[in-house]
């Protein structure tokens, strides 16, 4: 039995979870998301961590393993760090045991990960250094159009004639979008256009890692954006990947943290068996 906490420090938000894990018996005790919004992420992480512990009534000393993932390597009170694709893969399998691949769409990068049923990463691909078509870009455009984050998905689904967003560059694409508005293109069609262009890039990642069938679980904050999920599914069909479906999950945003907590417990057991029992320190 292991009691673990995990912190997923992202670019947009800090996610914290607490788990009790006993072999295959996995119990999710607590959770919390804090949007970073220009605050110091390390301070926020500590704060989030403390409040989750309080919320579930666990003392820091009782924890067997504090795992970090994402950009959390520098969190001083952690036991160990796991890289985010490792954790998203495991977290996705936990949320949706039948999933064959994961699409993690963060603010700056998109990642596609092919996994086996035990959460092992079989192959993966990240978007490149250039930030075109990132979540951040979508966010900027939405702000520009005066659209709230939760509205994006619904609007995008109303599109009847999505406009193609050409630009390779996110910055120039912004102007592209402004041009569209000036040509009288409706917000749904613009948003759908952006969704489709993002979807194109993401589906390309899936193809590169050779996902050919089954379910793809979307993780990360943008998994909540149903317009994007729909666009990805459309793109899958268009790209002759009919046998693949992309799905969201209400707890998608926690996938990384969940994975980290589970791997933390796994490492804890392994170390304990090796007699190198490490208490959270």
């Amino acid at each position: 039995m292991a009691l673990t906490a995990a912190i997923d420090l992202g670019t947009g938000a800090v996610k914290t979870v607490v788990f009790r894990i006993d072999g295959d018996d996995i119990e999710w005790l607590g959770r919390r998301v804090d949007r970073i919004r220009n605050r110091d992420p390390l301070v926020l992480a500590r704060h989030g961590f403390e409040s989750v512990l309080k919320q579930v009534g666990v003392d820091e000393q009782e924890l067997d393993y504090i795992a970090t993932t994402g950009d959390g390597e520098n969190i001083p009170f952690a036991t160990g760090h796991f890289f985010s694709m490792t954790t998203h893969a495991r977290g996705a399998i936990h949320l949706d045991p039948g999933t064959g691949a994961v699409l993690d769409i963060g603010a700056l990068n998109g990642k596609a990960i092919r996994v086996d049923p035990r959460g092992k990463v079989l192959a993966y691909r990240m978007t490149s250094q250039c930030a075109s078509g990132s979540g951040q870009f979508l966010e900027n455009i939405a702000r520009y159009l005066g659209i709230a984050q939760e509205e994006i998905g619904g609007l995008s689904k109303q599109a009847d004639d999505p406009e193609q967003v050409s630009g390779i560059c996110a910055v120039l694409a912004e102007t592209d979008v402004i041009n569209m508005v000036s040509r009288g293109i409706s917000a749904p069609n613009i948003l759908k256009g952006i969704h489709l262009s993002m979807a194109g890039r993401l589906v390309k990642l899936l193809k590169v890692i050779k996902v050919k069938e089954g379910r793809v679980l979307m993780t990360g904050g943008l998994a909540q954006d149903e317009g994007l999920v729909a666009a990805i599914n459309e793109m899958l069909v268009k790209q002759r990947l009919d046998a693949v479906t992309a799905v969201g999950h209400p707890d998608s945003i926690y996938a990384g943290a969940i994975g980290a907590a589970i791997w933390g417990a796994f490492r804890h057991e392994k170390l304990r068996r090796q007699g190198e029992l490490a208490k959270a320190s």
Partner: protein
Amino acid sequence: MAEDKLKEAVKEPSMILQKELIAGNYEALTSAPETGRKVCSTFVPGNLNELIRCFDMINNLPEINAINNGMRKKTGAMIQDAEKAGHSEDVCTYVKSDIGMMAQGNIAPNGKPMPRPDMLMLSYTGCYTFMKWFELLRHEYKCPTAMLQVPYQGDGRITPEMIRYVVKQLKEEVIPTMERVSGVKFDIDRLREMLKLSARAEDDLVWVLESAKHRPSPIDAYFGAVYYMGPIFTAFRGTREAVDYYVMLRGEIEERIARGQGPITPEGEQKEQKYRLVVEGPPNWTSFRQFWKMFYDEGAVVVASTYSKVGGLYDRGFRHDPEHPLESLAEYCLSCYTNNNMPQRVDLIEQYMHEYEADGFLTNSIKSCNSFAAGELLMMREIEKRTGKPGAFIETDLVDPRYFSAANVKNRLESYFQMIEQKRKGEKSAA
């Protein structure tokens, strides 16, 4: 979009003949399984068409396939397919569209499937990418591959050792492989006959390209020349058809000169010639007509280009020579434009600027092609320095539509033309 609105292109008789020739070769290729003819894939620069024909093989040029697909806007999807299969975004898009075309069933422009090549003739002239391209194809087709290394003119000249090296490879590697694959015995006299025909067509091609020295120029030596180059740079050098084609073309141009007419664009005769340009670098194929329109709409005509020399620098005097068949093939391979070193390239363009009385020098820098592109900015500076004429630089790609930003290119071209104009006015008023 804008492209779709263009009317059906205006065509001259030579253009129709040219299209027939190219279509004929595709027909020969796609019917190879029935006719039993062997297919040899090779590259445009330094291609050994006469030699290939000596063994009764059909010449398949993947670059030409890519261009064809590019002009029909099919390459975007092909390139993306290749990238999905693990090819890098950074590398030459000819390679990727070739690989993507294979993945999509390898359908030729005539709608029929391309046969598998019976051999790959890797004439490694002027471009590093060729080598890996055919290694990739070999990986796919597992067919015999003949490598012909053509040394680079690092010091700006062709040495006897280089010729010897190439000839030796021809004799001991290339010809034996071709004999083996085709089952045909090499006949040097047959080669001589073809080289004779090559030289005749080459004479007329040079005349055609040099007709741009007239004012107004009767041709566009970049966009138009792409069509004129077709037969001789591809599968027809050394044939009677090519000779006839160039005679016909020459006749048409002579008439245009006599009437004082300009080049024929897809929208008819170009009436206005305000700017005479020399152009470096290949064109963009996916938006070819839109691209050309940006020139003729503004009254710009290209009077000389380096791209029309990738398949041989005939205008500098080289001719295939039946007296020394293998040596002359070697010399041909060694002398292609991209096998010339940078100082030679700069000298050549400088000469063109003078000989063709150009107003400016424009570089279309191609993302795919390091062979052309690495160093073009220095070339531009040198030429500006030597000729005092302004240079302009635009960036596009061959067949990747993602890299053709029409607004951007147009902006630069317009600024450039307005700049030449303003400069002229300034010179006039200062004088």
